[in-house]
């Protein structure tokens, strides 16, 4: 099953990549692979923005707007103006 691919916020700065391969390890949707000691995105649309890759990138080469993904929390945060949280 796949979700909305066009709105995914994941980005990789290959210049900064040090080739440690952590992003490829942690991604549960196999977005990254390692080629020639550099990470590349092979399935960016599968990203669920969990933020694991960003959190484990020692070079700060990955950006993604990660966060809580459930509708209820996001609707509530939209209404109350507070940060989304599972409760």
């Amino acid at each position, binding site marked *: *099953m*796949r*979700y*909305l691919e066009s*709105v*995914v*916020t994941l980005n990789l700065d290959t210049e900064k990549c040090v080739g440690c391969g*952590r992003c490829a*390890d*942690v*991604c*549960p*949707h*196999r977005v990254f692979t390692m080629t020639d000691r550099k990470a590349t995105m092979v399935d960016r649309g*599968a*990203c*669920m*923005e*969990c*933020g*694991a890759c960003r*959190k*484990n990138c*020692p070079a700060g080469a990955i950006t993604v*707007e*990660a*966060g*809580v*993904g*459930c*509708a*209820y*929390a*996001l*609707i509530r945060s*939209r209404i109350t103006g507070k940060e*989304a*949280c*599972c409760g």
Partner: protein
Amino acid sequence: MVLIPRQGVAAFSPATITLPDAPRYLTTSISLHDRLEHLLVRFGWRRRQYRTEPALYRIGSATAESPVIVTANYKLTLDKVRGACAGLDLWILVLDTHGINVWCAAGKGTFGTDEIARMAKESRLADIVKHRRLIVPQLGASGVSAHRVKELTGFTVVYGPVRITDLRAFLAAGMQASDAMRRVHFDLADRIAVTPMELVLSWQLFLAALAAGLLLWASRASTLGAAIVPFIGAIIMGTVIVPLSLPLFPFRPFVLKGLAGGLLWAFAMIAFFPGDILTVARHLTLLPPVTAYLVFNFTGSTAFTSPSGVKAEIRWFTWPLLIWFVAGVGLFFAELVRGWLL
């Protein structure tokens, strides 16, 4: 719900027993009582209290060379972990995630870098094992920064497989996870495991549906069954039927999957309880938005939806759904009034 396991076979090694807070044994057998609790907790029974004491636990006859795996203190999680460790000798470092599973706790950060560092220190892990490796579940990675753990504790994080049932193969392969072990699925079994909670969490909605149905019936607008069944069914459709058969519904946005399910249900009700144009219109306007909203909420239980996608759906569908629903409420009251007048 504190679990203090005492059953073990081998004795503590003298080196370990002299430690002030000697690691405790954890059995790998899952009792019938555990299984019953697992079933109940899936339906929300004492879910918040279903936790284990955070500590370092010993499995089998773990030694200073044995691997260390990290997990959460949700007892359902720990039971799955220890159940998968039968016959293995290892250490389990249970973090304090306030009784929340690894994935959700990692999202909140309670299964995270600082908590690993704290528990490693508190359990004196560095004195108990000689190696410097921690096997952290892959789905905990969104809360854990491997390079920060290394800085804080001296331990190197090795990300283990997504599913604990692959642990044995992972260890046998020299702590290497295959691509399949690293991939998260959200198949029927996963969906069956999470839907009971959706049902339980919508109890207020069931009460509202019942009240609405009884009102209709009391106003003599329809028979008891024809009044109640459409409402109750729309909720079950949104919390159970569509979530379970998610891939069968077309469109990627969850709101559209829900609308498809809701319309399907509305048409079934129109066919099953023939009514006049007002009733037909009420079914078509009141039921689909309710089902759509519930299915949309299921994004919080899946393992593939992104927050950006959910935000996009909120932008696209909030007003159309709201207008659709308000029209349904209007027709509902029109039917009530007509029932009273006639």
